[in-house]
């Protein structure tokens, strides 16, 4: 049986009323946090306390709370999704923190992810990159060829899946010292570049997605590898290399 334990913590949280006002770090004290709680449940508890004391609760993005929707974010103690690796914030648990610890909670910081309120940022730039080319141009008639008509090498299919496992949370951008979105874009470009269905328009795809990425104001990749370490889904840097390759092919050939 895991020992039931409660801890008291101090929180330093970014508060910002809306996109057009300036924000600042505020300090809160929260007692009796169960170490079995998830990080977001701890924030629920803080918000309950804030509401009960006639204060405005902290706004933060979250939805599925099982690590797959990519909606939760948060830069916790200087790291995207907190101190654990391979974990989204919603799957981070309070047992990773010590009694009396001060925890810094900040929104993703990127020009392309402007703060909407408190800890919520606008990640629609990712959507626009996707709209620029993150698809196979096939109509949804269902009258395509049989799914098994084109065998796909298992290793390519597996690699495509691993790239496609990206949840679009933006931790790569948040953690990159340059605010670069290359891991996100690289993963999408790779998924399609690895599959025969996606190869046909691979050149246009990579050129258009990279153009959109640049227009959104993301920084450049300097290969620090931080994104790969902090990615909750472990998306590999190989995907960035593949995108670089695809881009070169598309530009030169």
């Amino acid at each position: 049986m895991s020992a039931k334990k409660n801890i008291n913590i101090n929180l330093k949280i970014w508060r910002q009323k809306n996109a057009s006002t300036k924000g600042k770090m505020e300090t809160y004290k929260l007692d009796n946090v169960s170490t079995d709680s998830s990080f977001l449940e701890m924030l629920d508890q803080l918000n309950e306390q804030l509401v009960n004391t006639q204060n405005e609760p902290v706004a933060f993005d979250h939805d599925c709370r099982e690590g797959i929707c990519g909606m939760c974010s948060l830069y916790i103690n200087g790291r995207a999704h907190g101190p654990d690796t391979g974990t989204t914030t919603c799957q981070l648990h309070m047992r990773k923190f010590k009694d009396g610890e001060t925890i810094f909670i900040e929104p993703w910081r990127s020009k392309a992810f402007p703060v909407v309120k408190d800890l919520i940022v606008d990640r629609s730039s990712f959507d626009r990159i996707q709209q620029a080319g993150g698809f196979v141009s096939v109509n949804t008639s269902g009258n395509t060829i049989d799914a098994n008509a084109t065998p796909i090498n298992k290793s390519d299919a597996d690699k495509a899946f691993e790239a496609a496992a990206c949840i679009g949370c933006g931790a790569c951008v948040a953690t990159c010292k340059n605010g670069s979105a290359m891991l996100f874009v690289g993963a999408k470009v790779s998924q399609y570049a690895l599959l025969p269905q996606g190869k046909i328009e691979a050149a246009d795809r990579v050129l258009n997605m990279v153009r959109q990425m640049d227009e959104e104001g993301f920084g450049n990749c300097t290969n620090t590898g931080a994104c790969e370490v902090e990615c909750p889904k472990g998306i590999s840097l190989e995907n960035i290399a593949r995108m670089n390759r695809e881009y070169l092919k598309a530009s030169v050939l």
Partner: protein
Amino acid sequence: MALDSKIPQGHISEKWTNHKNNLKLVAPNNRPKIDVIVVGTGLAGASAAASLGEMGYNVKAFCFQDSPRRAHSIAAQGGINAAKNYQNDGDSTYRLFYDTIKGGDYRAREANVHRLAEVSSNIIDQCVAQGVPFARDYGGLLDNRSFGGTQVQRTFYAAGQTGQQLLLGAYSALSRQIGLGNVKMYNRHEMLDIVKVDGKARGIIARNLITGELERHSAHAVIIATGGYGNVYFLSTNAMGSNVTASWKIHKKGAHFANPCYVQIHPTCIPVHGTNQSKLTLMSESLRNSGRIWVPAKKEDAEAIRAGKLRPTQIAEEDRDYYLERRYPAFGNLVPRDVASRAAKERCDDGHGIEANDTNEGVYLDFSAEIITKGKQAALIQGDSNPSDAKIQELGKKWVESKYGNLFTMYEKITDENPYETPMKIYPAVHYTMGGVWVDYNLMSSIPGCFVAGEANFSDHGANRLGASALMQGLADGYFVLPYTVSNYLADEIRTGKISTDTPEFVDAEHSVRQSIEQLINNNGTKSVDHFHKKLGLIMWNKVGMARNEKGLSEAIEEIGQLREDFYADVKVPGAANELNQELEKALRVADFIELGQLMAKDALLRKESCGGHFREEYQDAEGETLRDDENFAYVAAWEYNGSDASKSVLHKEELKYEFIKIAARNYK
């Protein structure tokens, strides 16, 4: 108003084809003049928006999340069924149809389910063409696995993230249409009412969740694809934002709500650990292939475990009660979800639960036997016919890791216990709602021009859904049904022209939404929204949960009625209406959940039989199995709204006729 399900004539295998041949069409040059609103961007919504967009309609799509890619379809783990028969094990459209009807405990519409089975193969073709990376075997062809309630391998999957891959596929198709300008996407918008003009759905009122602004959007047809209502229980495997509001708003404006009491409780979730818990996490059904479910046979052992004085590994083999294997020797640990869930509840209610939470609800899912079996096998393969215990353990754990590694890691992250060493603790949790908005064969609700797709409608799963069928239904509705049936409806709208949002209907609808928001904001109560939501959840779980009875249901109707009054009297919603206000969003959703909860209790009370996910304690056989009453209850209960007191709602019955399948009792012994 009589319910007309509009099921086409003819043989079951020809109904859909004939129907499609007779549906009206809209010419390509007319489509851009027609607006369609799609609310929700999960599998059903995203696929519908993408399909209608590429046909040339002017589509507006709405989701409350920050991106259409976040919809909760993304969390589906296991797979998607399709009658491809790639494994050559005797699968066919008819078999998938039959399994789904039987799995639904003979409470689904034959024609709809057959259509679902017919288009299932197209879904796989479509998704592969879109670049969805399904699992493949070494020959490069698609792999399949088997799932509960079937005897064939027809489930296509992408590791444990099939829902994610399918949703991202639909999202990519949607993104393409957004990029082309055929679909306009409204992220962080929540639909708060439907607008009817001359009885037809003509638009919606949506709240911009960032600015708080109320927006009027008009359209010639409105599609609701906003998922299920499992969050009425507060704790469920649904996403935090999953809500019934869109469905409930159209219900209030005239759409019937069908079979609300059909709720699927998934047997393998991580048990509740504390009062601050916000969410239950599913452990894939596939674990039941390798794990044995048990509780201590002696109550004093269970008590000692809860007190932390005894560890499960210390309980001797003869003191363990493998209750599923005991009760259902034929299917053992692989009985359908509803059966496994009820059996767990029965043991815990009897005092054998092992989790030290408020309700002692939890049972063990034990992999130790599988570790030994697989360890010995692996040793044999290595040529070691007399391996040491340590080697058996090592090899066995390695096998388990290769098969379920990611689930075990997730379990350990959440519970801080190592499931390789100590049995997993699991308990059933609310997972999926088979009930939903009543729709006819064309997926149109009782409001003309208002269509409902995916989990939000009631149509295909009867009283219980089989694993890997939800993804199939969502995509079938969006890709292959709505494009035809919505066009058929819109064929009569080509002369309508642009619909103004300045009409009194829009003004009134916006006004009433504004009023309900202001009422909540200015309420000056003392208790948070979650306080009421948790209370509602407890009533629902205890009295409208896995096992229901007349007394409990009657009490629930009373208590929820009281809760509704308390909610409006004492809820505190901080902040303002004209800003991003998550508490307000929750309050608006919970207000609808409260009304729905009451209707669920009422529906459950009136359904005096046990079927699928609906188990009435009064209606069971001597061995505690469900007793269906086909004589009196082979109907869809479609409720008509009649004021916020749901107990006054009016029941309409749609008789279920089984012409092509012989009704039989489900038996898993």
